[in-house]
């Protein structure tokens, strides 16, 4: 297993390769290029890097204009500003026009840590998921982020790729390659399906280990693409297990939990438990403290599985 690395590092490394491979890739940021890693692209390709200053709305507009002229644009910033402050610019200037703008902000979720609730985006997946033409990808580790960012250049239209600040232990091997719209079954099981994204994939695998010791067989699926969902893989699993847990570092409203509940409600009604942040904002603390506070750990997933099994035997 390789060392823990942040998904945002995957973004920065992918941009450098994209810069070499595709002359029409342009990167924009809004004064957070050191945090997103886009500054490295800026050093290598100064003409194709545009720092818009602290101005996310016009950054999205400029990206739309560049895309109108055949450029493939990647935009940075933090998730809360990129998707919240500039939401309506993403809607009308980018998604409505179906432009090639890949929105890849970092610092999503509560693992931002000490900066606190104002900077912790817990609603970005919900915001992006409801926009027509928009696709939503939530990488679980460095290699997934890097290959997803690279693949996005070849997937038509606007895409949201959610990236994070902390280093995460890899859940994929080095030979991993992202496949758009495909979920991955990381562990086969028969009693309960755990559907996870982002940093929660690693927690889901740990939870499955603990449950196995108790004789509970959990299937773990890394959903990766939240929109469009890999309905086939997800439905096949829940048809087998009969129950599902969703796990995400995001509000339980409107994100993965919402998407899975919608899917199952329509196509295969089954009990669902949503692990995520309740209807509340984040707060300051270390990433680990906050994950424990918001009940986003392997132990919390395992407990949800036990409860679900108890009530649905």
């Amino acid at each position, binding site marked *: 297993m390789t060392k823990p690395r942040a998904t945002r590092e995957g973004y920065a490394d992918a941009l450098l390769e994209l810069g070499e491979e595709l002359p029409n890739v342009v990167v924009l940021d809004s004064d957070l290029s050191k945090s997103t890693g886009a500054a490295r692209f800026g050093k290598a390709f100064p003409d194709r890097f545009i720092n818009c200053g602290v101005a996310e*709305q016009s950054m999205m507009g*400029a990206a739309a*204009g560049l895309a*109108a002229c055949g450029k493939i644009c990647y935009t940075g910033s933090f998730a809360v500003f990129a998707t919240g402050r500039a939401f309506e610019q993403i809607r009308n200037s980018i998604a*409505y*026009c179906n432009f090639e703008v890949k929105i890849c902000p970092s610092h999503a979720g509560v693992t931002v840590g000490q900066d606190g609730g104002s900077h912790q985006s817990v609603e970005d997946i919900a915001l992006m998921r409801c926009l027509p033409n928009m696709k939503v990808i939530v990488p679980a580790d460095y290699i997934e982020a890097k290959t997803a960012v690279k693949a996005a250049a070849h997937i038509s239209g606007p895409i949201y790729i959610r990236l994070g600040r902390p280093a995460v232990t890899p859940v994929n091997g080095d030979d991993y390659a992202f496949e758009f719209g495909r979920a991955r079954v990381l562990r086969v099981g028969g009693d309960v399906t755990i559907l996870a994204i982002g940093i929660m994939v690693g927690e889901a695998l740990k939870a499955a280990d603990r449950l196995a010791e108790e004789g509970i067989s959990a299937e773990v699926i890394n959903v990766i693409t939240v929109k469009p969902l890999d309905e086939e893989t997800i439905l096949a699993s829940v048809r087998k297990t009969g129950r599902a847990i969703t796990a995400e570092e995001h509000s339980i409203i409107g994100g993965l939990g919402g998407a899975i509940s919608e899917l199952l409600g329509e196509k295969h009604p089954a009990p669902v438990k949503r692990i995520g942040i309740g209807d509340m904002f984040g707060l300051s603390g270390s990433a680990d403290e906050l994950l424990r506070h918001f009940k986003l750990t392997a132990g919390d997933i395992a407990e949800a599985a036990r409860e679900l099994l108890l009530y649905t035997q």
Partner: protein
Amino acid sequence: MKVETKLEGPELTEFLQEKALTIRRDIIKMTGIAGSGHPGGSLSATDIVAAIYWYALRHDPNQPKWKERDRFILSKGHAAPVLYAALAETGYINRDVLWTLRQFGSALQGHPDMRKVAGVEISTGSLGQGLAIACGIALAGRLDKLDYKVYTVIGDGESQEGEIWEAAMLAAHYKLDNLIAITDYNDLQIDGRVSDIKDVCPVDDKWRAFGWHVICIDGHDMDQIVAALDEARQLKGKPVMIEAKTIKGKGVSFMEDMVEWHGVAPNQEQMIAALKELGVDDWTSW
């Protein structure tokens, strides 16, 4: 082939004024038939749009995606009728389509949609967004070493949007001298006088302070518009803002400088009266 006018002096002025008159008549008939729309702000921008399309713009209606074309973005997208009329008169779209404005199934949406209408560069309508997009197009032109110009018309009410000033800083910082913006300064917005709602005055000093070259003109004096466009196209090192003082509803006496005509279409009687003022005796024959 690209559209170019070889006319000069009084002949040019007369030619552009004729085009503006045609657009005005179309705006009235379009909104009249549609029963909704924004005639006031369309009429205030008409002379500017006519000068852009028939004097300034390097374009070819037969090749809407021609790489070297100059771009025009109507940032104040609610003035869609003025854009549609110009696109019909230049030949991007069929004239008959004009009379389907805002109807179900029509390509002519209430606000311009680039995916539905040839010649519409960017979908606009949500105010404040066109200028930043124009910056992106200007940046792309520089990257691609193409010498096209980007023109955009913004509203004075629209200038109350924060994104306008973000984009103003962006354009000046990157010295986008291929970007020419025009403020259609008619001093009226939906709720009343711009100077009463939230004053944008002094427009010229604001843009100058933001690092733009500013030219102040009467937005209905064709010679002044042409001269300003000439000056703007020559200028190096800075983006240009043309502050054009205009009259909302210009050309129709009962609409001029009346806030009521911001977003209300003429009924049939008013449409006939307005077209009469614009020299059309039988509206069915226009």
